[in-house]
């Protein structure tokens, strides 16, 4: 079981020690998302604080599934708010926090780590990897990705779908080995 899930159960009971363990275990992830999206260590620090305060004040917002996936969505949403405030960019929509119901179930997800995901991502052809990374960390729409990379819109859509499918297959293979 994802250790974050167990800790969140304790955070719901206002357990400060559990919260501290949660912070120790996951602040690098949140800070990293903030840094990748906002490109400013100070803002990434503020984002990290805001995200963990949300975890403390509204633990009921986590309704199961993968804790890492949920936390990263909260962090991305916060970072997107900041990016939107900065400019009048086209707004992308991050899907809601759902319990994972796909083949990459909680157990598989809990066995993933940065190295495995980096390897799987690096194995994608650059033309698929680049729009996926740009979309995930850039907080921009596929239309903006197409503009920035001077690629036809339809091609961007096809590459993103193909890349995500390959990524999902590779991650599934890696954790089952």
């Amino acid at each position, binding site marked *: 079981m994802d250790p974050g899930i167990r800790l969140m159960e304790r955070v719901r009971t206002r357990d400060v020690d559990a919260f501290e363990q949660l912070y120790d275990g996951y602040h690098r*992830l949140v800070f990293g998302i903030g840094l990748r999206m906002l490109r400013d*260590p100070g803002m990434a620090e503020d984002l990290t604080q805001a995200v963990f305060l949300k975890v403390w004040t509204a633990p009921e917002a986590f309704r199961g599934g993968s804790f*890492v996936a949920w936390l990263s969505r909260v962090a991305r949403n916060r970072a997107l708010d900041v990016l939107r405030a900065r400019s009048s960019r086209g707004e992308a*929509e991050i899907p809601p926090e*759902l319990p994972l119901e796909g083949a990459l179930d909680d157990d598989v997800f809990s066995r993933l780590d940065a190295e495995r995901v980096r390897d799987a991502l690096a194995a994608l052809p650059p033309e698929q990897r680049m729009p996926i990374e740009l979309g995930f960390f850039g907080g921009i729409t596929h239309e903006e990705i197409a503009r920035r990379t001077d690629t036809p819109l339809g091609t961007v859509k096809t590459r993103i779908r193909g890349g995500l499918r390959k990524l999902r297959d590779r991650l599934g293979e890696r954790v089952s080995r």
Partner: protein
Amino acid sequence: MSESDREAMLENVALYALGVLPQEDVALVTAFIANDVQARREYADLRAAADSLAFVASEPVDSARSARLKERLMARVREDAAHADGVRPRIGSNPAVLWAVGLAAAASLAFGIVSVIQDVGLRSDLAATQRRVSTLQSQLATTERVGAQDRQTLTDLLASDARRFDVAGGSVVVRGGHVYFTFSKLPPLPRGRVYQAWTFPKGSTVPAPSVTFTPNANGVAVVALPADATKLGAVAVTVEPDGGSKTPTTKPTFVRPLT
């Protein structure tokens, strides 16, 4: 829907899973996912793959920054825990709201101090500032509330444990006490006409008027009914004059029992 249209929609599902779909397209894609088994499976698969990308972001935080951040955060959490006594949240969770509250407090304090100052112009400026802060607070609260409702709607529509009932042009989705209409191809309406939802309490054949709605240019509409689904026996839709009716005036486009 042709095969090529379907493939195009599945590509949009992938964009949504990655979080790069423009907001204006979300209703269409959500309706498609809610009404299509393969789309739901594909969405779950691809969203899991997209979620995994967060692992790539994990960055070492330099020790000074990490210590400073943790100290600041834990101080607030411990203080909150010490005062909580079952009342929460004490800490505002949205930095924008915190800013607004801080600004409001600052403006309020400044407003108190300035009461001894006879400069009417300055007081007027401060009053305007306070009004702006108040408006901002109100807007932020509304945005938070609307955002939470939207997220709840999407969560319900995409959930695997939601009950789905096919109807003309879309489906009725029920999850817990919530009930939604998701239409992906509603016929356009004549000018001055709207669609209206009707609810039938369990055991009753008398429809109660509910919300009115109009689909977008593509015939897409996602509607949350303000009713407790656990108390409903059926739902229906009719076409009514703009503003809605108290009783149906046209033949229903569908009547769907929720069983």
